[in-house]
């Protein structure tokens, strides 16, 4: 098995009859291995993943997996047979046991041979360490166990493209670490697209990262490149009673020995006593988001100014000539 070649061209998704553009002309070639997908709430991450899994149809643009476009129903089904998906809102049938649920999902994924299906269900249950509780009903499972059932169903068909949306939300630290390692183990010779808000999850597992903001690709590249964007721009304010200017993005606020410690992103030293520190991926992400927000805000101000000046200009007589 080789990782699939996933190419996205001019992908646009709209809601409310075109009034809301969730994705706006996205072009991307998905790298192989584990790929982190970052972005703030409402940036379009889940919409992007739903299109990749064939659950949502775009308004325009194409998604191609190994040359198969997700345009027709038959082609979408072909791609789905090689894709695994763990959605953000993971629902399970509460009255089925884990084994029954996975058996059902395996059938829906096209594993119709009874013996092969039984072996595969047993194997994925063992992989997610649920084989000893496989006969318990899903309604008795904890949040972490349900997430593991979710990943188990996603890998039932041995997918070449595995898409996981916010898999570690609500998990305790130990369960989160276990889940992270599981995903890293699974990446191997497939592409795993991991969407999360938790930058640390991506730092620990993904060599490549894609940042989505305002329905477009804000960054794509190696994880180190994202950190490098903030190099020379990260400052630590350690002096007591020194607070950063309110318009600067603050990455962390933590208690220190001599008072509160602020970590801020700024192109120049925000205060005379600010200490320059080396940038992390989180700093790079915050710097990127701040740069985008500034650009959007500037553009919006420029538009408002130009609208105001247009309104204040005297109307030319020939416009209203009868």
């Amino acid at each position, binding site marked *: 098995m080789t990782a699939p070649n996933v190419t996205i061209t001019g992908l646009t998704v709209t809601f409310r009859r075109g009034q809301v553009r969730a994705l706006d002309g996205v072009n991307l070639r998905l790298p192989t291995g584990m790929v982190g997908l970052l972005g703030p709430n409402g940036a379009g991450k889940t919409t992007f993943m739903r299109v990749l899994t064939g*659950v949502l149809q775009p308004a325009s643009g194409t998604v191609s997996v190994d040359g198969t476009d997700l345009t027709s129903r038959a082609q979408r089904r*072909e791609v789905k047979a090689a894709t695994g998906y763990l959605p953000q*809102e993971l629902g*399970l049938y509460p009255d089925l046991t884990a084994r029954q649920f996975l058996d*059902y999902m395996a059938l829906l994924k096209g594993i119709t041979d009874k013996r092969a299906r039984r072996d595969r269900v047993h194997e994925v249950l063992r*992989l997610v360490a649920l084989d000893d509780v496989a006969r318990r009903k899903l309604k008795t499972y904890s949040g972490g166990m349900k997430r593991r059932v979710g990943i188990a169903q996603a890998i039932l068909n041995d997918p070449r493209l595995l898409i996981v949306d916010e898999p570690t939300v609500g998990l305790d630290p130990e369960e989160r670490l276990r889940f992270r390692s599981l995903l890293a183990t699974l990446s191997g010779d497939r592409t795993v697209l991991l969407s999360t808000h938790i930058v640390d999850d991506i730092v620990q597992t993904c060599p490549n990262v894609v940042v989505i903001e305002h329905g477009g690709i804000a960054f794509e590249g190696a994880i180190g490149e994202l950190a490098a964007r903030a190099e020379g721009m990260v400052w630590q304010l350690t002096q007591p009673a020194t607070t950063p200017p309110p318009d600067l993005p603050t990455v962390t606020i933590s208690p220190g020995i001599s008072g509160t410690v602020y970590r801020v992103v700024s192109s120049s030293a925000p205060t005379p006593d600010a200490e320059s520190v080396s940038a992390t991926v989180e700093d790079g992400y915050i710097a990127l988001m701040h740069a985008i927000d500034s650009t959007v805000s500037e553009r919006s101000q420029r538009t408002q100014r130009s609208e105001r000046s247009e309104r204040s200009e005297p109307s030319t007589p020939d416009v209203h000539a009868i």
Partner: protein
Amino acid sequence: MTAVLERTTAPTAAQGWWAKTRAAARYEYLMQVRRPAVWVVVIGLIALRCAAPLPVNIGSVTDHAALVSDWAGNFMELGPIGVGAVLADRVRREARLELNDLLASTPTGIGPRLWGKAIGAGAATITPFALCWAALLGYLSTKHGAGVIPVGIEVFATVFLPGLIFVTAFSLTVPFLTGPVLFRLGLFGYWVWGNMVGPDYGIPTPAGTPFEAIGEYPIGAWFHGFMFDARERGWNATSADAVISIAFLLLTALAALATAHYVLNRRSPS
């Protein structure tokens, strides 16, 4: 990767429509039959009606066919309302459980899931109905002899099943539009108006015609049972009428499910 997962033959999108439908039916059956509401509502409504059975002289009927079919009439008065009521919330269950994305991401389209749900959830809801019937037949056989049992099986197939399939099909399609609560109210209204409010009330109704769902025509034509509304109309049931009645119910049920399949398939990208 082979260290993580042993590879089996890769699944394909096209294979196994029937296997997937059977799987959906099997699991829908399991999930529905485990619901206490299914047992309480269906058995409760049957018991409510059978506490004071009609016709009033049912205790003195000795002919096996007439006796069994008279009891069938009592089962069919309220029982199907219970069947429809507990099926109505199955329709939007996947959305409520936030399973839609997960199911839509599989290469299986809407068809096997819809037909599987109709077969599985329908069969599960009919199970308490069938068990009540079996219990009654057991009781009647101790009083009137084992001859009631084969008649009871024939009655089940010709009187109960067409009406229950009809109710099942509409309970798994109409709530897509109305939601379960409104559907239940509508079902109750339809069942009373369309099957029990006879022509003597002076309002147009299918009650007493072969297009009712309560099974009077098979009862009258094949088992010499008591016909209420058809008798008011002055109609005598023939075998042809009974066949028309059954065919109407089954074909309408099929049409309802096929329409739902078509509409959902058009809406769904999967």
